């Protein structure tokens, strides 16, 4: 995946025209684009520096392009979307994916481990009416992506940082530390060590500010794996005797489900989910496979 590769030195905010900003969505909940509208203190200032030419949730003004900056929410999950993202890429100078769906396939990517036809038939009485692909995939599987904002949803501070960096023509500062670093900075007690709560903090990229540990629960990985994270090592630890306060290892499916969340399809979480059969448990009480995860 690509990160932080916006070329410095091009300052949109000082152009004679305001930068043309588009916001589009694919399969998603609208929460990441809503984060833009939730910038109550900055929104009107942003619209003074960017001309919003496409943002269906916010305006009836529409444009098919071109865009100086295109923010893309949602995963690619239908045949029509595969075509559309290619067309949009041609219209966009900078294409930035926003959120776990666009960067990692989202929670709907759990179907990538399942029988899609069975899913479709179970939810819809007339599955032939439904345009849907077997896989939900990140935008970067289809087109080049210039920058990514992680999270389910994205962090408001990061979208402001991105837009500010574009205006002044510098590289946006997006952290790649583990959630653990933010947790320590916040002064939160380590719930994994103190209470034996399973926590994905050590392998997950921060950006949220370590919300979950601060609210007395384990991180569930919604910002996705950080670079070179040892997810398989963490999974093994959780299954080992040291992985819980009771001194018993956790069952493989329980650990698998921990990784089978909003960024499950991003490696190396994907390998852990595949190895532990973590997207759902089977009727016989076990996971579909009980294999140890493969070495990285």
């Amino acid at each position: 995946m690509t990160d932080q590769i916006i070329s410095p030195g091009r300052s949109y905010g000082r152009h004679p025209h305001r930068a043309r900003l588009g916001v589009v969505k694919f399969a998603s909940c609208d929460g990441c684009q809503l984060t833009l509208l939730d910038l109550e203190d900055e929104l009107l200032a942003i619209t003074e520096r960017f001309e919003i030419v496409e943002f269906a949730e916010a305006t009836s003004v529409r444009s098919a392009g071109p865009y100086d900056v295109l923010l893309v929410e949602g995963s690619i999950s239908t045949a029509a979307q595969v075509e559309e993202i290619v067309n949009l890429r041609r219209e966009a100078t900078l294409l930035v994916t926003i959120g776990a769906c666009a960067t990692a396939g989202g929670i709907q990517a759990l179907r990538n481990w399942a029988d899609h036809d069975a899913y479709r038939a179970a939810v819809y009485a007339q599955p032939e009416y439904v345009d849907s692909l077997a896989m939900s995939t990140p935008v970067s599987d289809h087109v080049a992506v210039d920058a990514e904002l992680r999270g389910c949803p994205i962090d408001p501070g990061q979208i402001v940082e991105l837009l500010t960096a574009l205006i002044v023509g510098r590289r946006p500062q997006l952290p790649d530390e583990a959630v653990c670093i933010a947790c320590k900075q916040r002064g939160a007690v380590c719930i994994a060590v103190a209470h034996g709560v399973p926590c994905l903090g050590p392998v997950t990229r921060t950006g949220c500010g370590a919300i979950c540990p601060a609210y007395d629960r384990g991180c569930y990985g919604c910002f996705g794996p950080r670079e070179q994270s040892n997810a398989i090592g963490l999974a093994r630890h959780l299954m080992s005797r040291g992985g819980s306060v009771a001194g018993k290892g956790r069952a493989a499916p329980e650990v698998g489900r921990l990784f089978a969340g909003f960024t499950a399809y991003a490696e190396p979480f994907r390998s852990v989910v595949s190895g532990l059969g973590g997207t759902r448990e089977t009727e016989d009480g076990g996971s579909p496979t009980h294999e140890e995860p493969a070495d990285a």
Partner: protein
Amino acid sequence: MHDTLLPPGAALDAVFEVGLVTRVEGEGSLSLRVKDGRVEEAHLAIFEAPRYFEQLVIGRTPDEVIDIVARICGICPIAYQMSAVHAFEDRFGVAVAPETRLLRRLLYCGEWIESHALHVYFLHAPDFLGYPSAIELAKDHREVVEQGLALKKTGNSIVKLLGGRPIHPVSVRVGGFSRAPRRTDVAALRPALEAAVTQAEATVRFVATLDAPDFEREPRLVALRHPTEYPFNDGRIVSSDGLDLPPGGWETTFDEEHVPWSHALQAHMQGGGRYLLGPAARVSLDPGQLHPRAKALLLETGLAGAIRRNPNWSIAARAIELVHATSEALEIADAYSPPDRPFEPWTAAPGVAAWSTEAPRGLLFHRYDIDERGLIAHARIVPPTSQNQAAIEADLAAFAPSVLTLPHEAATHRLEQLIRSYDPCISCATHFLDLRVEREG
């Protein structure tokens, strides 16, 4: 070439399409079938890509479900968390602490404030005032938009305090919250809440000055009703024609079908019959439980009848509910003391867990079959928009003849405004309205 949707004297035997936008993604479109100048059928198609949530939750634990179903909607994640958590607690026989029950109401107030402020100021008011967006509206009436932003921010700050972030908060769990806020943290909301009550009252007076298109009908309304509260998490399912069901009893009276033109299942009364949910239904069915401030404003504006009969006036229902939600949030914050423990212990029990709560857009029903291991075996989630869809289509068919002779841009604008008045959870998609008129001779 077409100045109007139905040019006088035009041939009536051809299929006729009017694409109103340069690029149509197809998420939401309206097609009208017109015969002899009469609208015979209106189809509101929802083409949001399916995400299969009812399958994604199978084999997961109740607490995992609460995290997962929030992602159905970035605008109303609390509603999904609330219907799920109440279904599980009802099945498992968990009684939450009274303080926790109030915190859940406070959380729901936050979501209603955020969602209603977004809809009133960003999605709906620009229609009445002739602007394409609140951003354009702000150029001429910055103070109006800033008032909406301030209200929205207060709603979001409630959710953020209780759940860590405004969208997809993390603290709701079976039995209560993973962590309950301290008294001082809740007290810190007070200045913003006090201001929000004033801003909400001003919102009612502002929307009362708007000029809504004429359109009247008498819909069947459905909402929760509680003997002592305005409905959020609790109450019985009632209707304007005498229905009275427990909150988990939706399936005994309603059903869904899959229509060819939509990715959203459409709900009906069993045996046929459409109905309408949401702010207008709640204000009309539960006016006695509104906060006194909201009740007084409803009386002052004299809009109760218009709210019930003209969907274009739903903006006033939302404004009235903003007054209720800000007022109740202020009272809960003032009286708050933390529960002894953030959540009650519980043990999963197999069987059916079912419950309804009031999402900002109306009744949201969840049903989960839980297996012997405490994992989900089957799920059914019926969002408000799929329940409203049949009523929206009927209203569009009834309303469309009054605009068919307008220039097509004006006609589309009126139809879009009507669609937005239901606050469909595909508000984004309805901005893509592609009006197609099929005429038969």
